[in-house]
């Protein structure tokens, strides 16, 4: 079936030339030397007053990186990246020194306000609890400019700060966990990131604490020819809970910009981490010029029993997306979830999906992925579900749908399903009509027509995915959600 008009209009509304966040902030900035070398890494590390072991860690990663080859298996194509023609450090001049809101350059505050991210801490009025308070860590080019609500979070025992600060203030905690989920040499871009990551967020939720508010990091690339390499590390100690949001934008430029991030999540016994992303990097113009290359390694480790990690992503930006948020289900009874809506338009290329690696007993995972491609874009779902020998009673349910709008785009599905345990039950399906015969029967029996029944079930199902998104992102996601599933293909 072809796509319905409403869907076509909705996708058009978020087409590449409608990009709203393409403005440039005119702010004085300081850059490191161009090029990737030991000096660059040492400069970076010194700039951040890092401990000696961290500098060595980075240098080790750099040496490994120099011996690696760029992977070519993803269905994306782009000219070779010249890593020596990039700046690895760019920072607004005004952010040196202590960070409190009053000292932040008003130009920066204005930039974030323009992006709809108020950095001012809302006051709690007497007796009135604001509905949705979010603590924000704002990362501008290579540095974190401000982190809000720090004091209040501290009262709950929650550590939320930039990773540079964490390296100075809590080196033992960082040393214990950094690189344990995504090892230094995990892959080409993760290795690069390990060598040159400039900033990012660090979160630690102590045992038994439910984080009192949503945490959020907002990434902005402003400078030209600058790579952004952020590193996020989130640790949820026993029995804790945290919901974390990530947003990103970049100015409209003719050159491609590189963004290679690493995100590591660690959930100990009974802990839960919910990680949501609305990825809105500049996708390039309608002729495919410019845009962000987004090569991201995201992985969560359900290290403890009964732990849970949930990824939700809405992907609309970037010229190239190469991103597979994954879960390692190590602890018994742990659970991993992946909900994704990926919309590609213009000349965008998306190769995204997930990996659910079942290691522990009674582990379960759920993958829901919806890809919509329009224009001349390519949209690929690539996923791995695997159950190892000891993963008795592992369960997985995967559903991936894709929708094509127009004749010049492509949608691809590349699932790998590997079962090494007989009691593991894996189900993978990719049609709307197959969702459930029982539900259909139930609806038909109550007098609904077949079409009404399908609409009802599909709507209920989409709502399911959307409910995974925190309130703050619901508005942005709303635009995508109204997209009908009609005419979708596996």
């Amino acid at each position, binding site marked *: 079936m*072809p796509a319905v008009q409403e869907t076509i209009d909705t996708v058009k509304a978020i087409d590449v030339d409608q990009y709203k966040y393409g403005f440039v902030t005119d702010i004085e900035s300081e850059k490191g030397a161009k090029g990737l070398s030991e000096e660059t890494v040492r400069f970076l590390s010194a700039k951040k007053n890092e401990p000696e072991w961290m500098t060595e860690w980075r240098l080790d990663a750099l040496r490994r990186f120099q011996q690696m080859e760029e992977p070519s298996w993803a269905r994306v194509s782009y000219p070779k990246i010249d890593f020596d023609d990039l700046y690895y450090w760019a920072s607004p001049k005004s952010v040196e020194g202590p960070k409190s809101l009053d000292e932040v350059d008003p130009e920066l505050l204005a930039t974030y306000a323009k992006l709809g991210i108020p950095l001012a801490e809302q006051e709690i009025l007497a007796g009135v609890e604001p509905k949705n308070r979010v603590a924000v860590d704002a990362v501008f080019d290579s540095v974190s400019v401000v982190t809000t609500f720090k004091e209040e979070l501290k009262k709950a025992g929650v550590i939320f700060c930039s990773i540079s600060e964490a390296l100075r203030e809590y080196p033992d905690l960082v040393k214990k966990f950094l690189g344990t989920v995504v090892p230094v040499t995990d892959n080409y871009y993760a290795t690069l990131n390990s060598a040159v990551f400039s900033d990012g967020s660090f979160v630690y939720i102590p045992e038994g604490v439910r984080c009192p508010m949503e945490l959020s990091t907002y990434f902005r690339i402003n400078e030209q020819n600058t790579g952004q390499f952020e590193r996020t590390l989130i640790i949820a100690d026993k029995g804790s809970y945290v919901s974390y949001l990530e947003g990103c934008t970049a100015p409209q430029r003719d050159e491609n910009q590189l963004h290679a991030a690493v995100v590591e999540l660690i959930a100990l016994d009974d802990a839960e981490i919910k990680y949501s992303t609305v990825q809105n990097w500049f996708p390039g113009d309608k002729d495919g010029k410019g845009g962000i290359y987004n090569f991201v390694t995201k992985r969560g480790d359900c290290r403890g029993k009964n732990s849970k990690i949930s990824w939700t992503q809405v992907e609309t930006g970037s010229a190239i997306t190469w991103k597979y948020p994954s879960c390692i289900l190590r602890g018994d009874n742990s659970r991993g979830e992946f909900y994704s809506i990926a919309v590609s338009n213009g000349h965008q290329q998306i190769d995204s999906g997930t990996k659910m690696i079942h290691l522990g007993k009674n582990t379960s995972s759920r993958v829901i992925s919806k890809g919509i491609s329009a224009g001349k874009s390519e949209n690929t779902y690539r996923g791995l579900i695997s159950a190892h020998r000891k993963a008795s009673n592992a369960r997985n349910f995967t559903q991936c749908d894709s929708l094509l709008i127009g004749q010049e785009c492509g949608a691809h599905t590349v699932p790998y399903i590997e079962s090494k345990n007989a009691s593991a039950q894996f189900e993978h399906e990719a049609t709307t009509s197959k969702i459930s015969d029982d539900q259909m029967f139930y609806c038909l029996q109550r007098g609904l027509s077949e079409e009404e029944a399908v609409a009802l079930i599909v709507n209920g199902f989409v709502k399911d995915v959307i409910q995974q998104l925190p309130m703050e992102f619901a508005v942005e996601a709303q635009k995508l959600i109204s997209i009908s599933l009609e005419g979708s293909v596996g």
Partner: protein
Amino acid sequence: MNASVPIKHTQAESDLLDRFDSAKGALAGSVAVAALREAALGQIRDRGLPHRRVEEYKYSDLRAFLKSAAPLAAAADAATAKALLEGQDSYGDLDRFRIVVANGTFLADLSNTDALASEGVTLTALNDALAGEGGAQLLASPKTGLSDGVVALNTAFVQGGVVITVKAGAEVSKPVELVQVATSTGAQVTRNKITLGEGAKLRLLETFAGDTGEGELNTVLDCELGDKAALATTRLVIGAADAPRLFTTIATLGAETEFKSLGFIAGPRFTRNQQFVNFTGENSEAKIYGVTMAGGEALADQTLIVDHAVPHCNSREFFKTVLDGRARGVYQGRINVAPHAQKTDGEMMTQALLLSEDAEMANKPELEIFADDVLCAHGATSGQIDEDLLFYLRARGIPEDEAKTLLVLAFLSEAIEEYGEDDVTEGLEARVRDWLAGH
């Protein structure tokens, strides 16, 4: 990866290069055919045997599996072939025609050559065709591509086979069994070509007899269907064999054709059954089925690429796998839909049943879609025997072993019955029972 860096050859690869040097003088074909053989061998020399870093062989590492390569089998011995055929009864007393190829040699005397001729079927030895003017065409037909390692190996070493031509409008009244017999040990490398004229109909049964010892079996079935033609082809691979069994089907489908195929694998240590189906005319339909049983240390790989290059074609893929012991099952299926191949309807399903703790299944059902008005779906499941079903049968007084047999048979029969070639259903189900009783 830099192709110019020479690879370090494994023992088997060195053996194959030596094998070519000593055999090439005797291998049939025109000058152009010899050049194709050289080019194909060059691919093995440069890239080696297919291995796990080659995406299509990710789960079936032939390079690691093949420790050494035996020489090609010697010339056929008709008397031995005759004796072996008498002991072979895969389909019992099913009324059928027979075509016999022994060690690559087409044996007209043991085949129903005359009866087939009266049905409109002409049989020619492949080697005669290779020596002729269009010989190179036979090995270089479109999409046979040198890029696949197993096909390249076949092209380099092909010893012979048969060319089956069914004239336009001929509907062959009985199934035709193409038996490939190994009358002595050694590698068997064959290629068979089937050409169906417009509106022709043929049901083909591929069977294998004899022992190749340490030699691999590598056979390609190249099918070309004229408009409105119909072909059903059943490949029966049974019995234990330690050397690799490598099967390739290439199907090129004209307009309004019907193509059906069933790959039945039970027993060998290393089997790869790969099929490439190409739609070149509109309103055609392809139905591909797979029934796989593997136990012990066996690896059974069913690989499939269906290429929807034109609009208005349907394809159905339905694969069932049962694994026991430490066996590994592989299913890799890909449906390609080219730009403008609108109204394509593709549906792919793969289901696996794991009977033991140590069995492994890898499923990779892929879709690659470039047209927007299509219906494509795929499904994949894997799991063990449903305890509730087992309990139901046990509660009715059926012993556990028998109950399991019934459930496995029911599971696999779904594909056999949907394949719908009624006269072979019984034979195939009997082979399932054999496997269950004997593995």
